[in-house]
């Protein structure tokens, strides 16, 4: 069980990080979202995994750790606010630069400046 | 638990599962989008409905107290599934998704 759970977090992190390193705002936002899924699952599991142990007093015999759940709840909400903000910022970028490149609309690279981030633009 | 209840619950669950699966198979198998649209709207909705009923039965019997909240979910699904289907169909017509050549009639321009 733990291995599957850990692999899921690994997959979320890897895809999140990869997308975060892209050059356009939209994939970056999606990457951050994936990353935050991974992080939330991670933080959640810092109280260890439990089955049927919902921390509702009286509903079960053994309770899961409620604290990480509360923390993750806070983290989800904050993450939501942050995502909303960054999405709108990406929109502003699109509006201001008529482009959604994370570095804005940049002048064409001059020949002496071999800037590898510029390749393909 | 009474045997009758057990049969009922098991039957409802299995029926539900089966319809759910059939809906999914339909979604996977049917030839074009409009055909696939039928599967979840009907089979899956019904499947989930059956499972809900199973749950209602299960908890009502096992806890000896009426539990009907699941019905609300089912009602909800019945209300919304046709709308989802409608708007998805509109989207598909707009995009002009491929149809099987056997199709009679034409979709509308959007």
């Amino acid at each position, binding site marked *: *069980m*733990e*291995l*599957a*759970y*850990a*692999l*899921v977090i*690994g*997959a979320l992190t*890897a*895809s*999140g*990080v*990869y997308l975060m*390193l892209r050059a356009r*705002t*939209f*994939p970056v936002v*999606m*990457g951050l979202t*994936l990353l935050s*899924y991974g992080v939330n699952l991670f933080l*959640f*599991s810092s*109280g260890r*995994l439990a089955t049927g142990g*919902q*921390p*509702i*007093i009286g*509903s079960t015999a053994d*309770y*899961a750790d*409620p*604290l990480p*759940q*509360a923390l*993750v*709840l*806070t983290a*989800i*909400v904050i*993450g939501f*606010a942050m995502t*909303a*903000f960054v*999405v709108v910022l990406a*929109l502003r970028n*699109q*509006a201001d630069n008529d482009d*959604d490149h994370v*570095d804005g609309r940049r002048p064409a690279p001059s020949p002496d400046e071999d800037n*590898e981030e510029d*390749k*393909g*633009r | 638990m009474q045997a009758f209840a057990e049969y009922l619950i098991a039957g409802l669950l299995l029926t539900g599962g089966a319809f759910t699966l059939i809906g999914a198979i339909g979604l996977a198998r049917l030839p074009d989008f409009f055909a696939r649209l039928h599967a979840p709207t009907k089979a899956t909705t019904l499947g989930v409905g059956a499972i809900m009923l199973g749950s209602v039965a299960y908890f009502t019997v096992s806890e000896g107290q009426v539990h009907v909240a699941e019905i609300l979910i089912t009602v909800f699904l019945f209300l919304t599934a046709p709308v989802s289907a*409608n708007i998805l169909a509109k989207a598909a017509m*707009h995009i*002009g998704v491929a149809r099987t050549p056997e199709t009679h009639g034409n979709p509308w321009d959007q």
Partner: protein
Amino acid sequence: MTLLLVVLLPFIGAIAAPLFAQAGRTAIAIASSVPALVALAALFPHWPTLAEGGTLVQTYQWLPAVGLSLSFRLDGLSLLFALLILVIGLLIILYARYYLKAKENVGKFYSLLLCFKGAMLGIVLSSNLLLMLIFWELTSLVSFLLISFWNHKQDARRGARMALAITGGGGLALLAGILLIGRIVGSYELDDVLAAGDLIKAHALYPFALTLVLLGAFTKSAQFPFHFWLPHAMQAPTPVSAYLHSATMVKAGIFLMARLYPALAGTEQWFYMVSFTGMATLLIGAYVALFKHDLKGLLAHSTVSHLGLITLLFGMGTKLAAVAAVFHVINHAIFKASLFMAAGIIDHETGTRDMRRINGLWRFMPHTATLAMVAASSMAGVPLLNGFLSKEMFFAEALELNLPGIWAYIPPLVATLAGIFAVAYSARFIHDVFFNGKPVDLPIYPPHEPPRYMKIPVEILVFACIMVGMFPAISIGPLLYAAASATLGGDVPEYQLAVMHGFNLPLMMSFLAFFGGLLMYSQRQKFFDFHARFKEIDEKAVFERAALWLEDLAGRFTARLENGSLQRYALLLVVSAIVVALVPISSQGILIGSNGLTPLDWPTGIAAGLLALCALATAAMHRDRFYALVLLSVVGLLVSLAFARFSAPDLAMTQLSVEVVTIVLLMLALYYMPSWTPIETSWPRRVRDIAIALTAGVGMTLITLAMLTQPFESISSYFLANSKPGGGGTNAVNVILVDFRGFDTLGEITVLAIAALGIYAMLKNTAMTPPPGDGQGHPWTRDAYPVMLRQIARPMLPLALMVSLYIFLRGHNLPGGGFIAGLITSVALVLQYIASGMVWTQERVPFRYHNVIGIGLLLAVIAGAGSFAFGYPFLTTTFGYITWPVVGKFEVASALVFDLGVYFTVIGATLLALVSIGRLSPHSAIKSKKGGA
């Protein structure tokens, strides 16, 4: 108080002086003289004590933590320098009264001059090395402003910058040196330092301390190779040159060597570093001075040379040499100040300083010429003038220097050679300016004698030259003795102050220098031709080029690193995190903890597989944005299933609601963006990114695995135990959120509120052009609000409100709560916006979302602050049970009010954000004109 007052007075004057600027130049000059006059009067009573080698120390505490005290010391040495500063300062004030034009900013000038005077007095009177350093750097700073007094001139700015860089930089080295001395001695008080000479010299840090201190001294006193700033500082108005660059500031380095002589001198390092630097400076300065066509340039290089001479004397390390050095400080200050003033008069009256144009001034200003010729003779070392006396002592000391072998000849040789040059350039100063035919093309013609009072300072100084030269013992003897005594720590050698010491080797050298110099001047054309073969280096231009080059290099280096690429910055962050996390993990290894793995049930396994698959697919398919978005939704759904699977119903619900709103948000944004991401990066870079992403993923997997299999104990049992009795709710998560850690939640809803406000502000005046059709080029459909959707949306609203109320009310005891309820309400309203449009819905919403946010936050605060009234801390909750007929027993909890705050904030924030984006749509604007759907 006296000494503190002496130092402070000029600063007070500096603040006061500009106030007199309106009253005219005379008034401000008089006002500016007051501090010096008062200071002289204050110092006078101490003379008897000092003359006998006494010392006056006054100390006030300031910053004991640093070792810094307001500690002042008056002894012979500091008195000598203080007198130079005060007396020459007074003369400069008088001189400047006539030098500056009425329209110039005299207020600023006198203010800066007084600042400088104060700083300079601070240096010489400080008895705490750190305090001295403060004044030291202050002189650099003020001199920067004085040199650039005419800051519209490029040369003035450049000269000032260069001077600041060199002297300020030297000051930094001095700071380090002083801190090292302080570390060795354990105190910065001069008494302690001077008493600890042996300790210092024996310490391992001594070479460092010495080098750093000397760096400070050498830069300030324009020693080779740092001498070049001084000639370029001549862009300053002449009073400044006369004051700073002959008499005072450049002597600060000399003063420092004299002051720390007992503590630092007497070692081989000292000898070699100081004497060789002095020797080089002496020669180079004298040589270059001869060839300068600029009057002040000649004087400046001559100053460099004389400073080298004094340094050399200190470097020799004998007591007599030190006495000679102190003596030459006085003499040089006197004749050089008068020469600068004379040069200033000439500049003032002719409009130029170029000696190739200035000729035959004797005819036009005989009085000034006489004064200048006497002073220049003193500079040349002509007998009966003060310059001769100290130079004679210098020659004598040069002969006494016991270097091994052939090296023994070097100092006298250098001394004589420098003497020859000195005579030559002095001769040039006299002949080339006052004789040598007629003036050429002077800007002001004919030149006149300057105003009467402008010459008085020069007269006084020239008179001093003669007095000291002829009656040294009476005129300067006691002061020199006191100063030398203070320098040497009371151990003054036998020396005689006489006009003639008989016919001896030093006198021979003087004669040789005198006639050699005259000969050299008479053959000057040959030397000029020889010199012209070498390209003259314009140090200022070199410095400027170096600065530009440095700026350019730094700029390019910076731009290379700070290249504005988010991808790079993000990569650095990710790699940093990976490195710091993997180092301990890989070095000590954590894999599976002692709890081991639990078996995996296959539905969970399949769901986990699907989750991982869809996550990876999102990354892989990210170029098709809508597709990736759908995949992302699946991930979100599966994550919420995972929460449910592992006992977190609240999280499952929250995750799900948030995920849907997020997707709506992303789609709102995607409308205005390309629906397809182009390939931007080369494949090696993508491979690199994949490798890094995989490393991060593997790292997180390992960490998670280790974490999940370690045994663990937490504070949570407390929450479970107190949730019901203490918090009044059976949903421990909710009780944590609204009670145990309610403050987190307050912060969290504040974040939501701020985000929404920020989004609103960001989009307020933004205009976007939406694409006319989708990515495949289909125009959008006509039907904005399909009838079925509109019809179903209507009953959905009351229905969803009911559900959200249900979720809200039960949240304290069962899964649910304000946040989820808020999102359900929001989503129900969003459905109205989607189904019936912006304008239609907005017309029906009877409140501003801003106010909803405000009310939400306010409710939360009020719920929290209610406990103040009962003497409990913020956010303390209370609850009770009420029994009503029919309804039965139900709970009333103050936490519910807090949760209601959460509820409203969520609604307000979510909708404000979504509506702000929705408002961008031009469609909604057009519709609003028509008045609704």
